[in-house]
């Protein structure tokens, strides 16, 4: 859930996509790979093409990128929130 990152004080990263359809596919394949990700709205201060993004802790960044690439899902950038 949004806000969780703030509560734990832990930094989180987000990956942005071109469309909600691609974000949905990302959620599905990342969950299948058992990665600790959450779908969430894109934070206000970040501009994005679509309203939702995928949030994850920094230590799984490499795995997230790998899985997205393997599944040919285009993502824009990975930024901290």
């Amino acid at each position, binding site marked *: 859930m949004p806000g969780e990152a703030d509560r734990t004080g832990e930094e989180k990263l987000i990956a942005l996509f*071109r*469309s*909600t*359809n*691609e*974000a*949905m*596919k990302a*959620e*599905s394949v990342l969950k299948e790979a058992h990665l600790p990700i959450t*779908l*969430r*709205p*894109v934070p206000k201060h970040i501009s994005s*093409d*679509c*309203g*939702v993004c995928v949030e994850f802790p920094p230590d799984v960044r490499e795995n997230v990128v790998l899985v997205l690439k393997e599944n*040919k899902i*285009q993502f824009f950038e990975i930024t901290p929130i």
Partner: protein
Amino acid sequence: MERDELYSGKLIYVDNAASSWPKPRSVIKAMCDFMEKACANPGRSGHRMSIEASRILYNTRNELSDLLNVRDPLRVVFCSNATEALNLALKGLITEKDHVITTALEHNSVMRPLRELENSGAQISILKCSQDGIPQAQDLENLIRKNTKLVVINHGSNVTGAIAPLSEIGKITRDAGLLLLVDAAQTAGCFPIDFERDQIDLLAFTGHKSLLGPQGIGGLVIGERVDIERLKPLKTGGTGSRSEYEHQPDFLPDKYESGTPNTVGVAGILAGVQFVKKRSVESIREHEMKLTGVLIEGFEKTGGVRVYGPKSLEKRIGIVSINIDGMPPSEVSFCLDREFGILTRPGLHCAPLAHKTIGAFPQGTVRFSPGVFNTEEEMTTIIEAVCQIARRG
């Protein structure tokens, strides 16, 4: 169980090729649940209900991909029905310079867009069929020209029930470097389809027949060999993505999905596909072909009844077209409904050329199409009813 609750009175519904009925309870429940609990706009907002609606769309693409063996779920584009999907593929792809090959068994949802394209300069050739309604794959090569772009084929005939030799046609088409568009309106959900193995490039499906979903939802699967830069969308508009740009997104599926989708319909297809997968396409086919076999055998023993289509059940789906000597199909169908509560479809079934091929033009046929919820007992009742009507005729 399910069907007893849904059937009212003693109707025998054998018009599943037009629209399947009854629907699995789970389909109705999924649609009601969506309307009640998650009827937000998918892809337009980031809140949980909108995300849930988007998830329904994705899960459905995923289940359909699994059913049809499509590698990437985002290649499943939702349309309002097979007709829209076929229009998108044909009008999006074919220019006035192109040549298209199709068969004599096409539904008007292929034939009419093709005739329209022909009026603006495109060339059309028609692959002949045997009298029992099977397209002659061996003649396909001879029809190919320098500017041939596409082969369009009806996978399962809605008139004769004949199955087209898809893998043969797929191979010839691929070897010649052409694209293959398959109209799977009658086969998706009741006959095994393998998008990859059968070398299909575009496949149109509809939700309200053997996928056991509601009317008004279907789609087009767009294969990797189709250059989407050259496939024009039928309509452009809001997609929820790239909202700051005034140009249509150039990626799948958004390029072809403008406007708020029929998400409640998609929720229905999702439950329908899950029902089909749980029963398995193979066992549904086995059931429907057993019923079809009973019908054909019964009709063939009845004097004055002519049965159309292939003799072998293996070359068929669950559709049986007949005529009773001296009686117009509309009259037979009306008697069956009024006197026996048997619901069939008379006439041309939107495929005039197919009727010319089998020698049933312009009167058409009476079509029986048993589905997953029909029983053998019902088939016996149907045969007796047809016997009675034929004796009178």
